[in-house]
């Protein structure tokens, strides 16, 4: 896959194809998997995402610790000024997937399990109110995969390495680029959407209570989807971010490398280290202590 996103955009423009189409052709050209195999894998991922959103919206799930659950349902039935819009649908879907994840349900790590709500939230939020084909959604996942591959090579996709900017931040960048193409935008607009979105998640720390993928991870997937929608809207309107996207991605990697270990999935800083964060983790983890004979 590509390690310079601008190169991918230049190539896609020259050939008159989308980034998603370019991603599928590039992967097929490696000879490891056929195009059909890759599309089938992405289609399966799409179906798992759709199922996870539906499952989470029911609202009866509880996480392993009991700290999260039911908020996706709450948001899907919101009556606020933004109710019944792509915005609220995307946030609800992102929460739904993360609530399924926290309850040990089946999700697609995209790029990780902790950030798994952002991409389906954004794309399926759009698809709910915009007529898009399954084929277009599969191609959008390929777009997201291409963007994620660039981030994996240039920066990181791991909260333990780069903080939450590398998980929900990267996922938001992927969702923004994919969302632009799903809505008929150009590869260049998709690229600017990635930059416009990821500039807004730079420096985001990974600070889960008790080290569990629950608080704030579930909510951060919803705000990640919101960030992606902001990037999509700006890019489709013709806004261009002045710093090239690859440099924005490099900046995320650099900030991650300089980030104190307390902010990299160790539960040593941020919200995890607040008095309430510590108390909740202690209470819930005590409750989770395995029974005699079953653990230690």
């Amino acid at each position, binding site marked *: 896959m590509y390690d310079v996103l601008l190169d991918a955009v230049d190539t896609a423009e020259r050939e008159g194809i989308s980034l998603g189409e370019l991603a599928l052709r590039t992967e097929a050209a490696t000879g490891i998997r056929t195009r059909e195999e890759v599309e089938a894998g992405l289609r399966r991922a799409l179906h798992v995402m759709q199922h996870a959103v539906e499952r989470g919206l029911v609202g009866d799930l509880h996480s392993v610790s009991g700290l999260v659950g039911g908020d996706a349902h709450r948001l899907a039935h919101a009556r606020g000024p933004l109710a019944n819009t792509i915005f609220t649908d995307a946030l609800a879907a992102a929460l739904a997937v993360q609530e399924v994840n926290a309850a040990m349900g089946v999700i697609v790590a995209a790029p990780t399990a*902790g950030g798994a709500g952002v991409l389906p939230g954004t794309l399926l939020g759009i698809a709910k109110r915009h007529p898009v084909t399954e084929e277009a959604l599969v191609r959008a996942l390929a777009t997201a995969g291409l963007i994620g*591959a660039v981030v994996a090579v240039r920066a990181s996709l791991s909260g333990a390495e780069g903080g939450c900017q590398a998980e929900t931040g990267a996922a938001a960048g992927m969702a923004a680029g994919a969302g632009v193409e799903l809505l008929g935008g150009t590869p260049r607009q998709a690229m600017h959407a990635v930059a416009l979105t990821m500039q807004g998640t730079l420096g985001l720390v990974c600070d889960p209570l008790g080290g569990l993928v629950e608080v704030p991870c579930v909510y951060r997937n919803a705000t990640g989807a919101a960030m992606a929608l902001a990037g999509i809207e700006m890019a489709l309107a013709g806004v261009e971010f002045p710093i090239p996207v690859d440099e924005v991605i490099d900046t995320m990697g650099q900030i991650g490398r300089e980030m104190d270990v307390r902010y990299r999935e160790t539960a040593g800083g941020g919200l995890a280290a607040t008095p309430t964060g510590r108390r909740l983790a202690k209470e819930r983890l005590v409750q989770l202590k395995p029974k005699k004979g079953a653990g230690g």
Partner: protein
Amino acid sequence: MVSLLDIIGPVMVGPSSSHTAGACRIGLIARALVGGTPDHALVELHGSFARTGVGHGTDRAIAGGLLGYHPDDERLRESLEAATAAGLTIEFKNTTLRGDHHPNTTRITVRCGERQAVLVGSSIGAGRIVITAIDGFPVEISGVYTTLVAVAKDVPGIVASLAGALAEDEVNLATMRVSRRQKGGDAIHIYELDHAPSDAALAQIRALPVIKTVRVVERVA
């Protein structure tokens, strides 16, 4: 080379690609080393696996792997109960392994009838794993390939015999590694393969006079 399906995937039971999906894959490899569901397993959890493993379902994920469940199998949630029902006793213990280990590491000792195995495996991010030791031999197994694990006397010519049998069977080698605990003792041969060898080829390898054990670990990723 990063594949689109590495980024958009794996499909997995939550909540953590490293603490759940990766842990399950390590369990699957332990199972494969004894050729089926073990009767007994001692699962020692190290580092982050010990600290946050229960909340991430690491115990259930490893138990599920020992039962043959894959990371996307919803039965992982109930695997501890299923293990009891299947006659598999699992003892979990928190530990600090000696030496340099990834924070997400487990040592699993499994017994299935007469067969026994000990492995050390780490979950290194996004569901990817590496097995770093089998029965005390240093190894490096990713689980991305079908892997042949053979223990043989440390005498000249074994690699040629093994590779020859695989070549005759038209099995392509992706990686190979031989290591030993001491000169003239036993050596472990790890061949990562593009596809599984035939039963006939395995029988031929088993019949080699210097071969002590041969195990095939199917790909788990």
